[in-house]
């Protein structure tokens, strides 16, 4: 089972982009303290995202005719690895680049593609995704936000989304809404709409999290009127489209590097204090070894994408392992540092440790909880 996951090598032309990309990243992060870099996914820097877009690092899977780079998932692997490993602030373009762009490309009309994709590729159109609603959690089919088709073909949108990442900074939301039936109909009657967040009737309330950041938001829609072409894909096919979209999200190396900025800072600390006892060496080696395997697994999943497959089960497997690792890291490094209570720890490292410790629960929320991923794997194993 899962034999197709095998060691793969990044093509030289993709390895070759690292130096220039790295220079761009170094410029953006040079002033950032480690605990800011540890935010990476949550770090919002629209000007950095525009620079990435100008340099051709966004929209890598999008055809050139829409402003993309038309390169392979391997290229994207390299770009994402460089960004996350360095702790670059990627939040501004992250969702547009990972999910919304591919979605529009797959399901959008030619007009929608031409309208949105070039700006996404330049890092100039920022997106968020409206899925969860109060009380829905992983049960997305229970959405109640409604868009009713009006006689002139436009849509009247009412309802509320919650836990919407970066809604307050975004230009657009791709929202999963009910266009017919009731929530008792579950997956039936759901559609996806592109909502311009500057339209009247939209209120966005940031949700502050336990680290003091606000990267989630609540979004309220009150009689928001959307043009007929707000619909993306087919009416009533929203559920199917979302499932495909989640598959885009589950691929790539983004599920292994969330805690790597902390690891690297900790390794520098060990070097600085000269600690080399057996417990320390084993922890350093264990984290490195686990990450080595995860990286190769991630690369193997990427190779399946390159081969044109949709490795949903394999990606779920990798993601569950990866987030488990990412969540274990702050716990293990915390134990290590506090096992040496007379050793001075740089305040920046301590802040980084606590930031990652506090935010770590979110690693297994984004894009499917542990139980959901394991359910996918169980089905993939043929468990009846």
């Amino acid at each position, binding site marked *: 089972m899962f034999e197709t996951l095998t060691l793969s090598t990044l093509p030289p032309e993709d390895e070759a982009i690292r130096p220039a990309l790295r220079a761009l990243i170094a410029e953006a992060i040079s002033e950032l303290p480690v605990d800011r870099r540890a935010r990476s996914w949550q770090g919002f820097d629209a000007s950095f995202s525009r620079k990435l877009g100008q340099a051709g690092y966004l929209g890598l899977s999008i055809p050139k005719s829409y402003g993309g780079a038309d390169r392979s998932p391997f290229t994207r692997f390299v770009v994402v690895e460089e960004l996350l490993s360095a702790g670059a602030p990627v939040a501004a373009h992250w969702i547009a680049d990972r999910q919304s762009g591919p979605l529009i490309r797959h399901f959008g009309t030619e007009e929608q593609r031409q309208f949105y994709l070039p700006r996404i590729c330049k890092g100039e159109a920022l997106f968020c995704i409206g899925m969860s609603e109060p009380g829905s959690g992983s049960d997305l089919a229970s959405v109640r936000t409604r868009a009713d088709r009006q006689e002139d073909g436009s849509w009247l949108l009412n309802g509320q989304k919650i836990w919407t990442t970066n809604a307050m900074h975004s230009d657009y939301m791709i929202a999963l809404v009910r266009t017919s039936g009731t929530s008792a109909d579950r997956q039936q009657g759901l559609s996806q709409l592109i909502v311009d967040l500057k339209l009247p009737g939209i209120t966005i309330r940031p949700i*502050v999290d336990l680290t003091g950041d606000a990267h989630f938001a609540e979004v309220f829609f009150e009689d928001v009127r959307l043009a007929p072409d707000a619909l993306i894909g087919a009416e009533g096919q929203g559920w199917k489209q979302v499932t495909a979209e989640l598959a885009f999200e589950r691929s790539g190396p983004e599920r292994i590097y969330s805690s790597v900025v902390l690891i690297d800072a900790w390794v520098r600390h060990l070097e600085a204090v000269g600690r080399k006892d057996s417990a320390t060496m084993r922890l350093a080696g264990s984290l490195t070894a686990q990450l080595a395997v995860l990286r190769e697994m991630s690369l193997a999943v990427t190779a399946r994408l390159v081969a044109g497959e949709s490795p949903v089960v394999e990606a779920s497997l990798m993601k569950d392992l990866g987030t488990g690792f990412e969540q274990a890291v702050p716990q293990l490094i915390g134990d290590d540092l506090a096992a040496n209570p007379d*050793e001075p720890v740089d305040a920046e490292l301590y802040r980084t440790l606590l*930031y990652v410790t506090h935010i770590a629960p979110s690693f297994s929320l984004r894009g499917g909880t542990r139980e959901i991923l394991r359910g996918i794997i169980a089905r993939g194993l043929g468990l009846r």
Partner: protein
Amino acid sequence: MDMQELIDPFARLIEDLCTPAAVRAVEAGGDSSAMWNGFVESGFLDALVAEEAGGAGLSLADAAPLIALLGRHAVPLPVGDTMIARALLAAAGVEAPAGPIAIATGAGPAPFAAVASHILSGSPEVPVLSEARVEATGVHHDVDGYAPGLDGKALRAVAAMLRAILISGAAERVMEMTVAYANERSQFGKPIGKQQAVQQQLSVLAEQAVAARIAAAIGARSGLTPRLADAAIAKHGASLAAAQIAAIAHAVHGAIGISEEYDLQLLTRRLHGWRLADGSEGYWAGVLGGLRMDEAGKPTADFLRAA
């Protein structure tokens, strides 16, 4: 004395003084003097001070349920630290200041140091009181802080035991909140607490909460100058539990659990902080391992009975 006669009024006092809103206000840097004065006036700060020195003369084992209540409500001031500090100071014949006293035992942040007027270092026998000159950690809403230049290593055992009790109190509340949430939150048409995978996790949470409480009680049994082995068992067990409990509670709660306005994080941030303070599970495992190897010829069961 029936301890319940002390526990009930202390619980009411904390519920009045330390509402989640009041806790958040202190964490955000607001004035904590009203909250502190409430504890001062209650007389509980001298609970551990010997009766001949004007205190209530409670044993630490007796006072453990009171300290656990502080953890349960995420009280953002060093009430437990001050109770211990006052007892040690009284025993050493030093007059205690009126303000909150935090205990600092290492180079890392000391719990509650950022909201303390004084820091206790030194040893149980020769406690050293200093005015608080504290550096903030920069961690969001942290009440812990660095108290550089002090040596409190010799207080690490009693401080570890205190943290273990605080952890046990917070753990109990986190367990209750998480079970309640699992019963009330529906997904796919039924309470998530009906899912076998969630039930299995909550069972582990409950096991760890009980383990933390028992571990803390082991720490408390040998009093204000705990035996090193007891302190090690207590803090090791409580720290081990703290990380698991926080992880499971957040996994069950999902996104709402990490939002600032939901109360879970008031408790889980404390669990993490106390886990790290005064030696993590790895530190205390190392200490206990040394003690164990000093009696390597003895069966473990005999070592434990002697501990």
